[in-house]
């Protein structure tokens, strides 16, 4: 993996000095505001970025997660970056980490921090706050599309293709 392709991790890794919540192995779940998430979106190196906001208790979120992770594997070489943001309460952090581990997530992810309203409006003013949501950004970090509710593999893939054009 080149340094350029790793560069998007910098905003996430920079947060590791904060009280990161880490499992013994596998994923990390770090507190992140909308500004942190958008910084990771706009870090150089990606041609398309999916930001998925999910929660452990949200069945549609759990159902679509394998498709998102499969897309990440399939399109990594074509510049897809997947950023996961858990909307779980901080008291549910362990459950969130357990789910990520169970799904085979081995990269840093976020736990939403701060005001819900600021978070929602900063990511997409048209989003009501209902979970799940998946936001599609282009290489400049501009929001191109949003899938409100559960998406399918084909639906995500179509949005990725459009953003890659």
């Amino acid at each position, binding site marked *: 993996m080149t340094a350029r392709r790793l560069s998007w991790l910098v905003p996430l890794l920079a947060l590791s000095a904060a009280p990161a919540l880490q499992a013994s192995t596998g994923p990390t779940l770090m507190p992140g505001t909308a500004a942190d998430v958008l910084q990771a979106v706009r870090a150089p190196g990606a041609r398309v970025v999916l930001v998925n906001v999910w929660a452990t208790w949200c069945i549609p979120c759990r159902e679509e997660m394998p498709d998102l992770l499969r897309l990440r594997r399939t399109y990594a070489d074509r510049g897809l970056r997947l950023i996961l943001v858990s909307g779980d309460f901080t008291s549910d952090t362990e459950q969130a980490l357990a789910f990520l581990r169970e799904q085979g997530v081995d990269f840093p992810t976020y736990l939403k921090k701060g005001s819900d*309203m600021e978070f929602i409006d900063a990511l997409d003013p048209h989003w*009501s706050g*209902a979970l799940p949501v998946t936001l599609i950004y282009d290489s400049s970090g501009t929001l191109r599309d949003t899938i409100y509710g559960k998406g399918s593999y084909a639906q995500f893939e179509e949005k990725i293709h459009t953003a890659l054009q």
Partner: protein
Amino acid sequence: MTGRMVFTALALTAALAAPATALQLGDSAPQRDVKMRNVDGRQLSIADVAGSKGTLVIFSCNHCPWVRAWETRIVELGNTYSTRGIGVIAINANDPSSHAEDGFDAMVLRAKQRNYQFPYVVDSGSTVARAFGAERTPEAFLFDASGKLVYHGTIDDNAEDEGAAKQHFLHDALESVASSKPVDIKETKALGCSIKYYGS
């Protein structure tokens, strides 16, 4: 089935699944005469519960962790303001095939356990929720005495920790309406559970 029929079927399915655009401030409550089954067995509509000062319609359910986190506050607000001229109705629009705990029997139990002193009704078919453009639980719509929407949004700014909440949006809006004053903060948002529409 022809391609045209397939397209039509897909379009109809999409139309059923998708909520309408959310109500705008100043709008009246749609579907206000639709009767819904209350936990006490009565058939009630929004019009039936409307108060002299205003009406609070809150889309809720049993299973959602955000509803559970806010439930004590929701019940307290509902019980308090229903005695101050505000009609209050909680509506469960979720298809219980998605979450069994959102079924009618569980609603009856929940309303009893948590001492709901206002109706908690079933929006069978999600007809009312779709007409409101409601998307999540909990989601509050507050109408003034003239029936116009004056507040749409969430309960307060901290679901997880009541003691840490700094802005009590719904309380403040209810207090304004009960006092026949204009609402200051009219629209708010929070994370929440998506409504599990029938047919989606």
